[in-house]
């Protein structure tokens, strides 16, 4: 891959007409800096910022994308008002909150525990770490679709395994079909997929703690319990913070995995914000209204992202 790029750049340099080449070579550092950054900024402006501005504009209208020829009216802030008072949206926010809280809580708990165990440095720990990491690299849509098979009552492996452990009848519960179980079904799959992410970051945190601190604590006769709470936990905390924020942002916009698992159902108990938004925008075609909804999600994520970057810089400083 790298060779391809290097030779491509070479070829590009050679293929450039001499006059241009001379100009490129003779460029000042400042000019090169801008020449190198400009294409990226341009692409992002065209495919991210321009659409964003368009969304903000649409959010003040009653435009419907499936009827582009209809007259478009400015409705001011009415879309925003409607969203903030819409009961469905609050239900979907509740579903999102439930999903966020439990996925993060479980992933932090299991992820940290696994990292701590792996950090006991047994033989083969690298191999097992790689194996544990596999689920998070896979396509959420493809894997989510297959989980609907594992969740089938009776024939599904998940139900069978639960039945085998608890002695219940495997066809007595429907993980995806039941209003009470479906919100947990999506939490389970997300936790299965993303616990390794938290684990990897915690492991890096644990490995960044200098041994000398523990040695000093040992000399001071601090108990292992005390060492854990006064050294290990505070030293890993910034890393954990990074993991939590990242998972928070990712799960706040969760779409692919859950859409494949439940499609937002049964009813709308697992209709997370993005799924709800997709329905408004691409099924009900309320483009203006869903643009306002998108803007509200943007602002929320933007806030989270700026906290994330602060946390990121703090970890980097270590």
């Amino acid at each position: 891959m790298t060779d391809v790029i290097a030779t491509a750049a070479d070829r590009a340099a050679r293929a450039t007409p001499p006059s241009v080449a001379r100009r490129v070579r003779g460029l000042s550092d400042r000019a090169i800096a801008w020449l190198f950054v400009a294409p990226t900024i341009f692409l992002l402006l065209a495919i991210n910022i321009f659409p964003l501005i368009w969304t903000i504009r649409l959010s003040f209208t009653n435009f419907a994308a499936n009827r582009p020829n209809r007259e478009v009216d400015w409705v001011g802030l009415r879309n925003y008002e409607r969203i903030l008072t819409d009961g469905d949206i609050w239900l979907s926010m509740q579903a999102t909150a439930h999903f966020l809280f439990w996925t993060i809580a479980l992933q932090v708990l299991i992820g940290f525990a696994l990292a701590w165990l792996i950090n006991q440095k047994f033989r083969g720990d690298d191999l097992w770490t790689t194996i544990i990491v596999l689920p998070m690299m896979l396509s959420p849509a493809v894997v989510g679709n297959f989980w609907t098979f594992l969740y089938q009552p009776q024939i599904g492996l998940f139900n069978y395994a639960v039945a085998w452990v608890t002695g219940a009848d495997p066809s007595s519960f429907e993980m995806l079909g039941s209003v009470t179980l479906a919100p947990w079904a999506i939490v389970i799959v997300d936790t299965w997929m993303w616990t390794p992410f938290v684990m990897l970051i915690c492991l890096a945190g644990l490995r960044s703690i200098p041994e000398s601190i523990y040695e000093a604590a040992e000399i001071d006769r601090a108990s292992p319990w005390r060492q854990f709470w006064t050294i290990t936990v505070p030293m890993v905390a910034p890393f954990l913070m990074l993991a939590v924020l990242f998972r928070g942002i990712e799960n706040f916009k969760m779409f692919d995995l859950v859409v494949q698992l439940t499609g937002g159902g049964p009813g709308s108990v697992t209709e997370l914000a993005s799924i709800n938004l997709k329905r408004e925008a691409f099924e009900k075609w309320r483009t203006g209204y869903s643009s306002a909804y998108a803007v509200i999600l943007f602002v929320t994520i933007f806030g989270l992202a700026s906290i994330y970057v602060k946390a990121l810089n703090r970890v980097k400083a270590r």
Partner: protein
Amino acid sequence: MSAHSVTEPSPGRKRVAAALVVAYALITLLPLMWIFATGFKSPPDSIAYPPKIAFEPTLEGYVNLFTTRTRVTPEQLQALPPPDGLAETIVRNRDMVIAGPSKFGERFMNSVIIGFGSTFLSIFLGTLAAYAFSRFRIPLSDDLLFFILSTRMMPPIAVAIPIFLMYRTLGLSDTHLGMILLYTAVNISLAVWLLKGFIDEIPREYEEAALIDGYTRFQAFVKVVLPQAATGIASTAIFCLIFAWNEYAFAVLLTSGTAQTAPPFIPTIIGVGGQDWPAVAAGATLFLLPVLVFTVLLRKHLLRGITFGAVRK
């Protein structure tokens, strides 16, 4: 305390830790093993109760994945010449004949084209930008870098509304080019952040020496920095490729035919009376396998990739 360092865990503790980690790893692998196994089951075996662990392997799932079939009457079947090849034999056992290829091959190729196309573009643009951010004083560079990262954080569905309208106007809906540009725009933030980290690690002295030797800045970049950044560029490329490969939200909203990738397609593989699970599993296996291989290759840089270069280990 024993002879080794005070922070070295005892052998007993190591053994318990190893056992727990291995147990977790095996449980977490089960769904993946099940996908792999289901791909080689016959449709009745795949939905048997209790779930079958031992079964007679068949390629029926793979045959069904790559073909479309039509049902024929036993009399018609009798009248046909003997089957040529394994696929035809398998299909005829179910009273069917192969009618033609399925769309899976095409969708898989779309994933390959869009994945590699967008990866190449993101790396090309990302390397240039990362070099500039790493080596030159760019005004407001922190704000620009934050802006670049924040584009990655946007919920795809929210971005998809205006992109859908924009692509419809420009005629980019359901085209390879449209998807390549879109995935490049999403991946470029990752590419810039990761590559900046890798280039930051290359000592400036190398380039400075080259500049003194009479290289221009551009030559120094191509001949000194790029080879040094090779591993970093390769692992960044794999991350971009995996993202584009796995992406679903944009693909499902913006493509439907010509440019549709595999993730929106695989869940729609239907058999008689619902999903054809062996075929779905076969498709999933073929689709997930390259990512598994890449993950193993990447394992040293994994952490860096998933944290935008913040955690380097």
